[in-house]
């Protein structure tokens, strides 16, 4: 997200005021960044029903920690970092309390259910729906670490540099993580199809 100088100055003023305990200033920051936080949470968790509650918790955490914000990253990046960490906690607790794995943006699915294959070609809606369902399952089955990098990159459209800043990692590390995560998901994808998606 690009900021103009005026926008930056206004945001800095809100941040300083929020750090002094001004709730209205914090409210203005919430208004400005709520969509970004919603997007990160939705893309990473895939849980449409929980996005608003989780976002609210993220902003509460941000308010409690706002005095520690030192402008080493943009406020949006700082908020995204809190959101991603909150997603990790949420995903871990969800994984530990459920035997079933949820599909990424839909109803709960049994991991043991046989994967459906999709036609090898043709951009028809049925194929698209099946493919979306399979990729949704793949993300739900992936480890939290794999899921975060892939979701931020492939679904939220963030650059490797942005992801590195959010996760406080080197760009090279993110690239490696992304590559490995993609590879694992592709292997899983092929297994779901019984060895090769187009072999079925």
């Amino acid at each position: 997200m690009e900021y103009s100088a005026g926008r930056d100055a206004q945001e800095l003023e809100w941040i300083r005021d929020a750090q002094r305990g001004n709730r209205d200033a914090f409210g203005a920051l919430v208004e400005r960044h709520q969509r970004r936080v919603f997007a990160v949470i939705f893309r990473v968790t895939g849980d449409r029903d929980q996005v608003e509650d989780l976002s609210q918790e993220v902003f509460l955490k941000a308010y409690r920690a706002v005095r520690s914000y030192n402008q080493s990253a943009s406020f949006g990046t700082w908020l995204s970092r809190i959101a991603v960490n909150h997603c990790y906690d949420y995903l871990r607790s969800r994984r530990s309390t459920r035997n079933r794995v949820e599909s990424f943006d839909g109803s709960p699915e049994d991991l043991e259910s046989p994967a459906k294959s999709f036609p090898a070609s043709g951009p028809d809606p049925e194929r698209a729906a099946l493919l979306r369902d399979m990729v949704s399952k793949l993300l739900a089955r992936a480890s939290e670490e794999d899921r975060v990098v892939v979701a931020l990159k492939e679904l939220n459209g963030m650059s490797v540099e942005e992801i590195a800043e959010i996760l406080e990692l080197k760009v090279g590390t993110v690239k490696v993580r992304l590559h490995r995560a993609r590879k694992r998901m592709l292997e899983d994808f092929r297994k779901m199809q019984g060895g090769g998606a187009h072999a079925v």
Partner: protein
Amino acid sequence: MRCNEVHELIVAGSLTALAQEHLDACPQCQSFARDEESLRAGFELLAKNEVPEPSGGFAARVLRGLDEAPARMFEPLEIIGRRAVLAAGALAMTVMMALALSSSGPLREGRQGAFSLTRGESAETVEILLAGGVDENEEINLMPVSVNGGDSR
């Protein structure tokens, strides 16, 4: 070039001329490449799912939620405070016990011997324990031994 190396390049999305040459002649790698393409297409489809919009008044609800924040902010202090009170209580109890046992308590000089071992006995006990000479199932009687004919009243 080996299939594994080509797979790495396919996932990375950076096929070299050599890899492309291998791919053109290898059915397994072609299948792998099609799957990678399908996965990529699947991500693109999933990315089209619209992000839920914040409902009206979301920011106001966040601000209302902040009312609970100050209480939560002091939670760590409360925990520390509670622990400090417990620690002080335990210390006070220990001091009182020590005072009671040392001179004016119910267990006076003569009876103290019932609990204590001489230096030699103590060393012997340690040696037995270290040598594993006590059966785990054997009960060890740690009850105070009555000095004056078993009547401790």
